[in-house]
């Protein structure tokens, strides 16, 4: 049965989940296994929540399971899940906003100051030799104002219009933030590379 599930497409698995949702969760577990790395990376880097990222990813999948009844199959499961994940992470950020006071939806472009940025420790320096770890450290060092639009654009591939709508800011502000976010990303990435070398 497990072998069968592994070979099936997302759409076939979704159909299976909808047929036997109260009885068998193996099909859905396979969908989780297939998409967990991507969902987790997005939850982690969109929110910069080290400790909450796995909880957020879990909540996204549980939400997806119960929302699957409303999934009409007009888009791919992957795209549908991505939308769900973005909404969940943005809600988390909005809830957290009161605590960290990092504006997500102001029309001021923000200075992109790396709120919550951490200088690399010695153990971190060793890890930075790996490109992926450098990417992670770079994103972690960026403030919400620049990181969130950057992740939405370059990780999730959302259009500028969609990002503007979701963040509740103007189109020009979105473009500006993404441009500045990319610049900062490249700068920090290069700096960390010289640290790790």
């Amino acid at each position: 049965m497990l072998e069968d599930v592994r070979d099936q497409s997302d759409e076939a698995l979704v159909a299976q989940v909808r047929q036997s949702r109260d009885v068998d969760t193996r099909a859905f577990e396979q969908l989780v296994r297939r998409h967990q790395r991507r969902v987790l990376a997005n939850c982690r880097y969109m929110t910069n929540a080290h400790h909450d990222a796995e909880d957020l990813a879990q909540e996204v999948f549980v939400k997806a399971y119960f929302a699957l009844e409303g999934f009409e199959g007009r888009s791919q499961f992957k795209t549908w899940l991505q939308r769900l994940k973005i909404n969940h992470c943005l809600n988390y950020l909005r809830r957290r906003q009161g605590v960290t006071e990092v504006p997500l939806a102001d029309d001021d472009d923000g200075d992109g100051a790396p709120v919550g940025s951490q200088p690399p420790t010695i153990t971190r320096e060793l890890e930075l030799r790996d490109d992926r770890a450098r990417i992670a450290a770079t994103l972690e060092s960026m403030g919400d104002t620049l990181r969130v639009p950057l992740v939405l654009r370059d990780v999730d591939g959302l259009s500028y219009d969609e990002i503007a709508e979701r963040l509740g800011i103007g189109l020009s502000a979105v473009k500006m933030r993404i441009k500045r976010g990319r610049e900062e990303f490249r700068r920090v990435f290069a700096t960390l590379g010289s640290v790790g070398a």
Partner: protein
Amino acid sequence: MTPDDIDDPSEDWGEPIAELRDLELDPRSDLPLRVRRGIERRFFARDLLTLSWTGITKAFMEWLAMLFTGLSSERKQKEEQ
């Protein structure tokens, strides 16, 4: 796709930006297991809610039946007197 969706092709953002597209992270815990437990918890909470609601409704119906029985027997007694 509108022109706004297209990045300026004259600007090369370099490899690290392009690599963001494939960003993945390995979970530390067994995420599918955590998800299954989360789903089971939600099912349990839903069942509990349904059960409590059924219990309350049944108790209310019993109380109503007792009330009507009481009232009708009281009326009968009065009529007999």
